[in-house]
Structures are given as structure tokens and as C-alpha cells.
């Protein structure tokens, strides 16, 4: 029996996947559930398992190649079965990896450049259905216009279309061809130009190649870029900043850590902060909310996203039901999630579903900053470091441990007064941790 291996949606928001490594090779026997390959999704590197058995007859997507979810990337079949139809279907849809590489190679003028870093991971984005509805796999033989296509491993475009594209700064790889076999012709470039598809206008001066290095953009970095743009442009952000005296938190931390010593556990200031944020949000559900166009969704439970810096960018694993968990448990979870995030081993449900996020850059010596909201949440708290600061108390200048935090709010959901009330509660809790218990 022929089993087509599709690029699966391995994360809820995954639109395309990059093949990191094939664990099986052409000719290998495959049993149901065997790990076929490692796929880099928009969030993590995941394993793709076989959904059929037989022999891995054809590997369509080479390592390093990127294709949209739904594309056929390999074919499993019995040794003597005719798999030409299944392979042809893959070729039809978008033999992405090869295509992407070929595309990059064609645009980079000297042949050697194709071998280099710039070419390898350039990915063709399917301008079609899948983009809108993240998790929905795209049928590979769908009727949506095929991306600039590729049977022969090269972009099919007329010479005239190429010239027009070059002049107008339109990226051929992002255009669907309307000619026979998906060939890009003049009218496609004109249509793309009208629709505003393609690269920005050409720069007047291009630096020499020796003066820069093109670093390939990973799937994760692409997702970050996309989500940040998505966040900042449509969300009307505003920012509220408050200073907190952290003296009592430092004392509390010392007390707690002393108690945890026998278990060889520790909590950080941030862990206590997270607990306080969860408690404060329970008192201000209007800040634990999401904008849904015609309604605002307020959550009962607090699921805290905790921004974690990793090699390639950042990710926000989620401490579920933080309001129900003790500080030590929060600490354990954060450490465990962060460690797996750095190894790119997070499971999809571990980085989705947060209702509010906290980003702490205190350990980097940052005094204060603003963070960009992680949609669809309505707020994020940007936390600076705890610093010895001269303050005036009862008419005297004294040194206190102060911390500055700034909340970014989606003004569609949270008004200034609401945000301020939440921050006031949070500040009170941090300045008197016992309030967390109330």
C-alpha cells in the first residue's frame, strides 16, 4: 500500500516546516510509528512519525528544505509498487525544498553562492490558503494557485517576466505563475505588483558581498518576526511604569530558600514575581483577558507566559494555572520549561494558551524596558533588575532595593485606570508579600 508522507502540522501555528534530518533513508524498511525525520517547526524541532508501513521508497524533500504543511515529502510503499503518481503529485504541489534552494540559487548570480549559506535555507512561502489558518493542513493538490513551480527544480518564468520582476523588485519565489505548468508570465508580475506582493523597492546602493554575511532565518525566527509585526501594528499599545520596593521580596526569598534548602531547591525573585502577578491578575480579571473583535474574553485561571531567551530567539513557555501553584512549584516548572525550550524540545501545548506574559531582563542589567504584547493576550509585564537606589523615606535619603516594571497594554481591552489598578495591587503585593496570600 502506498502511503504519502505529508508535512504535518506539528504545532498548532505551524504553516511550513523545515526538514532537519531524515532518520530513514530511501530503501529503509518503515513500521507504523517509526520516527522518519526531524522537522523544525515555527517553535521547536519535532519528530515526524510514519503513518504507514513498507519501504521508504522516495524522499522528496531534502534535508534543509522547507515546504508548507500538507505537502508530500516522501512516499512509503511496498518494494514493487508503482509510486510515480504519488511522486508526481508531490512535484505538482510544490517540491518545496529543492524549489526553494533552486530559487535562491537562481537569484544569487555566481554559482558558488548557491553552495553557500545564503542559499541553503531560503524558503519559498506558499502564498495560499495555509497561511491564514495556521493549523489547517493544506491539501497538496489543492486548486489554490501553486507557488512558483518547479518540476524541473527551477523557477519557471518567462524572460520578460524575469526582467520585469528584477526591475520592479518583485520576488519571483513569492509569485504564483498562471502560465502552463505554473510558469510565471508578465501578467503575473503585473498582478503581483498591483497586489503589492514582492520585495521593497531596490536600494540605491548594495554593499559588496564581502561586507556582510547572510544569516539564514530559521523557522522560529520567522515566526517571531511575524508575530511581533502582527502584534505591534494592529494592537494599540500603551505603557504603564511603576517602581517597586523589593526589600520584602528579597527577605521572603531568603526565608523561602532556607526552607527549601533540604530539598536542594531555590526560588528566584522572578518566581515570586510570577506568583504575585498571578495573584494580582485574579483580583483584576479585566487585565487577564483577550480581544476577540466583538467581545473581550476574560479568563478565570491565570496561565502565565514566561519569556525565555534561547539561541535563536525567544519563546514563552506557559505556567498553567499559576494562581493555583505554590512558588516552589512555579520555580520548578519555569526551570524545567526553560531548559527544554533551549533544547527546542517543548511540546506545542507547553507554549500556547497563556493569558498574560512576563518578560524579565533584570539579569542582563536592564533597568527598564517595554515589551511587545504576545497576541492574543492583552498585556505583558516587562521587568527590570533589582537595584540599590537612593530613595526618600520620611524625609531622609536611604538606599532601597528598587525594581522598575512596565506593563504594555492592549488599549482595546485595558484602559489606563484598569492597568494602573492592577499595577497598584501588584506593587502592594511585592512590597508586602503577605498580601499575596490574602
Amino acid at each position, binding site marked *: 500500500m502506498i502511503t504519502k508522507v505529508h508535512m504535518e502540522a506539528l504545532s498548532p501555528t505551524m504553516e511550513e516546516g523545515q526538514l532537519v534530518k531524515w532518520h530513514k533513508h530511501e530503501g529503509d524498511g518503515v513500521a507504523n510509528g517509526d520516527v522518519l525525520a526531524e522537522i523544525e517547526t515555527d517553535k521547536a524541532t519535532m519528530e515526524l512519525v510514519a503513518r504507514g508501513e513498507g519501504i521508504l521508497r522516495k524522499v522528496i524533500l531534502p534535508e534543509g528544505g522547507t515546504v508548507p504543511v500538507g505537502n508530500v515529502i516522501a512516499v512509503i510503499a511496498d518494494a514493487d509498487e508503482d509510486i510515480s503518481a504519488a511522486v508526481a503529485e508531490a512535484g505538482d504541489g510544490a517540491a518545496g525544498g529543492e524549489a526553494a534552494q533552486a530559487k535562491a540559487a537562481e537569484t544569487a548570480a555566481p554559482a558558488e553562492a548557491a553552495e553557500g549559506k545564503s542559499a541553503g535555507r531560503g524558503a519559498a512561502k506558499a502564498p495560499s490558503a495555509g497561511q491564514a489558518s495556521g493549523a489547517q493542513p493544506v491539501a497538496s493538490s489543492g486548486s489554490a494557485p501553486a507557488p512558483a513551480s518547479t518540476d524541473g527544480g527551477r523557477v519557471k518564468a*518567462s*524572460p*520578460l*517576466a524575469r*526582467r*520585469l520582476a528584477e*526591475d520592479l523588485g518583485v520576488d519571483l519565489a513569492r509569485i504564483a505563475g498562471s502560465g502552463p505548468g505554473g510558469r510565471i*508570465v*508578465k501578467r503575473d508580475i503585473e498582478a503581483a505588483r498591483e497586489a503589492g506582493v514582492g520585495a521593497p523597492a531596490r536600494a540605491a546602493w548594495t554593499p559588496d558581498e564581502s561586507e556582510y554575511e547572510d544569516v539564514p532565518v530559521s523557522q522560529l525566527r520567522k515566526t517571531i518576526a511575524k508575530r511581533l509585526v502582527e502584534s505591534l501594528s494592529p494592537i494599540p499599545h500603551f505603557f504603564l511604569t511603576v517602581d517597586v520596593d523589593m526589600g520584602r521580596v528579597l527577605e521572603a526569598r531568603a526565608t523561602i530558600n532556607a526552607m527549601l534548602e533540604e530539598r536542594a531547591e531555590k526560588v528566584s525573585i522572578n518566581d515570586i514575581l510570577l506568583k504575585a502577578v498571578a495573584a494580582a491578575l485574579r483580583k483584576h480579571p479585566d487585565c487577564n483577558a483577550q480581544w476577540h473583535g466583538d467581545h473581550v474574553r476574560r479568563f478565570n485561571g491565570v496561565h502565565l507566559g514566561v519569556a525565555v531567551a534561547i539561541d535563536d530567539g525567544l519563546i514563552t513557555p506557559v505556567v498553567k494555572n499559576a494562581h493555583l501553584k505554590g512558588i516552589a512549584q512555579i520555580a520548578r516548572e519555569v526551570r524545567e520549561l526553560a531548559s527544554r525550550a533551549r533544547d527546542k524540545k517543548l511540546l506545542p501545548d507547553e507554549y500556547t494558551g497563556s493569558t498574560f506574559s512576563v518578560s524579565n531582563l533584570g539579569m542582563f542589567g536592564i533597568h527598564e524596558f517595554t515589551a511587545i504584547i504576545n497576541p492574543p493576550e492583552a498585556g505583558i509585564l516587562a521587568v527590570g533588575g533589582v537595584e540599590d537606589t537612593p530613595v526618600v523615606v520620611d524625609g531622609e535619603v536611604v538606599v532601597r532595593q528598587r525594581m522598575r516594571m512596565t506593563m504594555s497594554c492592549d488599549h482595546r481591552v485595558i484602559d489606563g485606570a484598569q492597568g494602573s489598578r492592577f499595577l497598584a495591587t501588584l506593587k502592594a503585593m511585592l512590597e508586602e508579600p503577605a498580601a499575596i496570600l490574602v
Partner: protein
Amino acid sequence: MAGKSSVERFDLIVVGSGPGGYVAAIRAAQLGMNVACVEADKLGGVCLNIGCIPTKALLTSALLVNEMKEGARHGIVAKDVSFDLAPAQKRSRAVADQMNKGIAFLFKKNKVTHIQGFGRLEGKGRVEVEAQGGKKTVYEASHVIIATGSRPRDLPILKIDEDRIWSSTGALMREKAPASLLIVGAGAIGMEFADVYDSYGTKVTIVEMLDRILPLEDADVSKFMERSFKKRGVDVYTSARFENAAVHDDGVRATFKDAKGETHEIDVEYVLSAVGRVPNSEGLGLEKAGVQTDDRGFIVVDAAMRTNVPGVYAIGDVAGHQLLAHKASHEGITCVERIAGKGEGTVDYGNVPNCTYCHPEVASVGLTEEQARAKGFDIEVGKLPWVAIGRAVALGHTDGFVKIIRDKKYSEILGAHIVGPSATELIAEFVVGRHLESTVEELERAIHPHPTLSEGVSEGALAALGRPIHI
């Protein structure tokens, strides 16, 4: 109701078997449709029987006549040579007959039902066919394509009788070349018959209303052709107004005003009226069926050749645009494939080549220089005379040129115009080039065989790029 059940039913009925209709019928059969093609006259329509094909046979004869006149150059010295139109016409008929039988064979092979008679729409999905004796039969079909073509325009001041005043049909039936012939209209048909009759010794006079002959072609082409025909001894009057034709026993006394307003009165044996063609859209039941036509009688269709009435389509001359056989065939294929749900093809009316088979031949595709400028293109024009091409010199046909109009910005082949040997064959390279959106550089870089006339294309491309090697 019992009678109704006996009505023969088809998936598609094509009315008319010209190059639009018969091609549509065969393509539909290929796609698995049960097809009938209704034809009132001979299979193949005007094109095959009294148009494209027989005239090309005659023009081949005419070329040979002219070659023979130059025979001494090749060492062919024939005494008492005579040129007789009758065998040439006979051969022309034989060519048409052969092609006509070819269509009957193709219909049989593809299982297209050939219904003899005059077809007209008779209500929704019904076609009534009136056979020669007047017997009427009704057929039913899910789709009906009107492909009834066009006929010569008949001017009130120049009534065609096919005796003294001919249409192209009359000109194809003459067995003897007359002493004199007046041709009204210097389009492709007028110029082709001017060539034939001039070659067989007739004194030809051409009267054209517009300011140049072959008025659809590039102005350089018209200028060149006018000079060429005048050199042969043909009288050419442009910007002239034909006024009257008085038929008498020995011929026709024709009056026209020339460009300066001077009245000419000439006596000729015959007059050929070649002033364009009008659609055959009457008597087809179009009005009753509610099929929309424009003010000139052409059936109005969309890009899929659909009329405003569901299930009724029109292709070829009767549907307007260029009145050319190859355009009709492509419309037929497009129409049928879209009926069958095969793709979203359309006919590229901007890339339909024009061919005139007089000598030298004239062919073109795309924009003229004037049109390109009017459209605001920044252009570069390359003009390569055939005298620069070895094969043309060896052939002894160096009259004419290849003219390529190039968009400077993207180097698109905006237009190509050829006058000269095998122009009508060579134009196809530009058609393909334009269809594939080749730039002028591609034409030049593709290696053309030497020595051939096709080098006129690559060298012409170089000329359009400002760097010809051979001029």
C-alpha cells in the same frame, strides 16, 4: 410526447464547419463529447473552399510565373512561353477538394456527426437544420456553438454579381486572365488577387479609400509594398474614393476620385470588390433566442466565447475580433475546452499574426511602430534589409525587410513586421517568441542555422538592439 423522444440529441452542436467550427467539433470529440457539426455548404467553410487555401494555390502558380519570367538568370531559356490561368484555377480547385475530403475523413475518424443543411437556433438547446430540399429536422444539444463565419461586404455602389463585379469567390472562378481588372480595397484579399492577376498579364488598378495599401500593417510595410506593386506596373490609388461602377456588355466603366480630388473614369473588364467582410449572423434564430449582437452584427461573447444566452457560444468571424482562420480555430478550442471544464484558457488577441501571401509576402504580429509609440512605449526599432542575408541573396529574393519593434525598458518584442521571402512562415518565430514572452536578446542568442532566411530573425533582433553584424 412520443414524437419528442425521437429527437436526436448531442452534447454539442457546432453550426458551421469552417476553421473555427470543424476544429471545435474535433476537439470536443477528443474530449469525449457527442458532437454534431452542421454545414449548409461544403465542409471547411470559406477558408478551405473559396478562401485561404485555393488562393494560396493560385499564388503559388503566380510566383512560378514570375520566376519563369526571370528564368534566363538560371539558364532556363524557354521559347514561346505562355501563361494560362485556367490550369492554375483547376489546380486550385483540386487543392481545395483534397482538403475538403480531409475534413470529412477527420470527422469520421473522430466520430463527429456531419449534418448537411442550414442550421439555426430553435429555442433553448435546440437546433433546426433545413436540408437542401427544405426538409427541416430538429436536434437537441446541451451546448450550441455558432461558427457561421462571414461573407464579403457588398457595397450598394458596387453590387457584387460575380460576373462583372466579383467578390473573392468570383475572382477564384475565372478561367482566363482578363485584360484589365479594377480592385477596390487594398487589404490582404485585394493585394493577393492583384498579385495573381498581374502575374497572369492583367492590367491591374487598385483603389483604396485609406491613405495606404495594407492599412492594418506598419506604415513602412505599406510604403514598401506600394512601391513594389507600382514597379510591377500596377496602378495604385490611395486616399481615393470609389464612386460608381457602370456595367455594360464589354465590361465596367468605373469612376473614382483620387487623393487630389481629381475624378478618374476608367474602363475595365472586371471589378473585384474587396472592401471587407460582414458576419453571417442573420437567419440563425439569434434574435428569437435573445443572443446579443453588436451594431455591426457580430455576436457578442466573453473570454470563454459565451454569448449572453446560457448554452450558446460563438467563435470565429461571426464573433468579431480579427477575421482570421487561425484566430477562429483557437477560439474553437478555447470554447470547447472551457465547456468541458478543461482550464481557463483564453485567446490572446494581441498575438494573432497577419499574413498576406502576395509577392513579396507580408506578415506581422503585435504592434506597429505607430501603435507602440501611441501606447507610450520607449522603443527601439531594428530594420534589417534582406540583402544582408546570404540565403535571400542566393534565392534571388532580396526585396523587403524584417522590422522589429522593441521596448527599451524590458526588451519585450512589441511587434515584428516582415516583408519578403517566406515572411508568412518566418513570422511564426515571432509569434512563439512573443507567446513565451521572450525578450529580443533571446531571439538573438538562439543560434539560427546558416545560411537560412531565419537568420533574418536573429539579425533583425541584433538590429533592434543597435548592433547588427551584417549591415
